[in-house]
């Protein structure tokens, strides 16, 4: 695969739940090393689109091409095997389980016959905490349960987990929701570090300022359609904000 080839191409993706069509033919391209922000009001179809890309929902119609190959995603594990990781809005952590169990949930390191290599899981978790997650507090160890962590620390665990498995595409659904200013700054730095590692990301955030500071490109969704795509250099903060308001009021954007 050449560098010029896009990492992910979606063609005319449609998704209906019963008689309600949530995605009405989405076309979207994600390049290598590119951070793309999905913006749009509640109900625009952002979460559904993400769930199609991660294999949670099957699209009703359309084509997904990843690294030049058309793919069908049967489940979450299939997308992970291809190199698509997701940091869910809900973080997908289990509160009463230790960090070393949470990091490797669903793809444990095993020795034989499915017996856990607990030592290796703890060692890798410890390494990840110090290097990838920035969890250096002495009060948190690999044996700590998730429920004692702050919102930002939980988000660090979720992002660290996604980075650990060496994905090519990382999807972040509202990663800064409910975080303090300082924690938000750190999460955004994480997102930018994804680009530095040559990986791509799809980034959803309601805060236009976060989006504008972090993403290379903005894709605006409205009621199941892509209604605009802009490179960061094409728009200022204010123009992006104005456009969202315009979209909200008029239901369309002028390009």
């Amino acid at each position, binding site marked *: 695969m050449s560098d010029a080839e896009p990492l992910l191409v979606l063609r005319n993706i449609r998704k209906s739940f019963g008689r309600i069509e949530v995605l009405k033919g989405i076309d979207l391209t994600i390049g290598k090393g590119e951070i793309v922000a999905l913006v749009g009001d509640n109900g625009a179809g952002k979460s559904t689109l993400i769930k199609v890309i991660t294999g*949670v929902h099957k699209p009703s119609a359309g084509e997904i091409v990843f690294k030049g190959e058309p793919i069908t995603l049967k*489940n*979450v*594990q299939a997308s*992970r095997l291809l190199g698509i990781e*997701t940091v*869910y809005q*809900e*973080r*997908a*952590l*289990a*509160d*009463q*389980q230790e960090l070393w*169990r949470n990091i490797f*949930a*669903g*793809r*444990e390191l*095993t020795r034989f016959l*499915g*017996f*856990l290599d*607990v030592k290796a899981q703890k060692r890798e978790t*410890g390494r990840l905490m110090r290097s990838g997650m920035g969890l250096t507090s*002495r*009060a*948190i*160890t*690999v*044996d*700590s*349960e998730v429920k004692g962590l702050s919102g930002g620390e939980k988000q660090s665990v979720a992002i660290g987990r996604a980075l650990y498995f060496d994905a090519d595409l990382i999807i972040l659904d509202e990663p800064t929701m409910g975080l303090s200013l300082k924690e938000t700054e750190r999460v955004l730095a994480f997102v930018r570090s994804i680009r530095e590692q040559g990986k791509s990301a799809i980034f959803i955030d309601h805060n236009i300022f976060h989006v504008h500071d972090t993403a290379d490109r903005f894709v605006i969704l409205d009621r199941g359609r892509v209604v605009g795509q802009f490179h960061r250099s094409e728009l200022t903060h204010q123009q992006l904000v104005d456009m969202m308001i315009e979209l909200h009021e008029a239901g369309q954007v002028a390009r």
Partner: protein
Amino acid sequence: MTSVASSAKDQAAETQHGPSFLWRNRFQIAIIGMLVVLYAIFLIGDWRTYTSFDIYRSFMISIPFFGIMALAATYVVTLGEIDLSFPSIYGLAGWVFSSVYVATASFPLAFLLCLMVGVVGGLINGLLVTKIGIPSIVATIGTMFLWRGLVNVLTQGQGIPIAQITNDPWHALFVGQIPLGGPVVIPAQFLWFLAAAIFFGVFFKRHRFGGHVLFVGDDEQSARMMGIHVDRVKIACFVILGVSAAFSSVFLLNQMLFFWATTGDGYLLTTLAAVFIGGTSVFGGKGTMIGTFVGVLIIASLEPGIIAIGLSGFWTQFVYGLLITISVAIYALMLKRG
């Protein structure tokens, strides 16, 4: 070399500042403490009985009849689910074992078909809960009546004597008495119980499957998002309990040499009580096999212990209730603080 040394230092610092060994094992320590206190009371109350081997031998004979099920039920409870039907599966599997043995005189065949009943019974519970979506407490009330009812219809209330089984070479494998010199005789079923405890314990905390059980019980949504096959894990846990119930009935029947239509009845509450006294959370996500193991020992020692210290048998249920209520209250407080 320096990096190894410094990481070792980090580790030492972490163990100092992280959750301590005592805190992490607080549930296990609490229940072992409870066992020690109980036995102190029994020893003071009746020194002679509790220093002779006979009473322990009788414990070792009867504990496996429900203890193995308690170990297996720990998985189901850790999922945040419940199963009320396993005593009825016990009965139906026991009926299959007895009638097949009487009809064919083949122990292996009777044993195999008996275990199949456990598999099917567990599978039906699992499918009702996951694929149909019935809450497990409701689904297993249904199957509890269903399988017990089927036993009643099949037997017309009649029992099945199987005294001839004592001549079968397989009989000793299940309930044989192993002399260790002097008055010390170990019943084979207790060794099976110990083996089951080790197997279930290792499988729970050191195997991928147990990790999935904990994760699903803790947060089902997260488990799904992490690609864990939630339904498969749940069905497997119900099957494990069903098979354990069937397996346990073989011990009971080989010991008692008679099948009653009520076989298995009465084990529901003692089995679940052992799990809850052991510290496994009814909310799911936290469980301990050591806790259940000690819980089984406590439940099994209570009745003889109450009589030994001079109270009448009428006190048994009262003391059960006292112990269960106090222990779950302590665990709930621990969970709140943790």
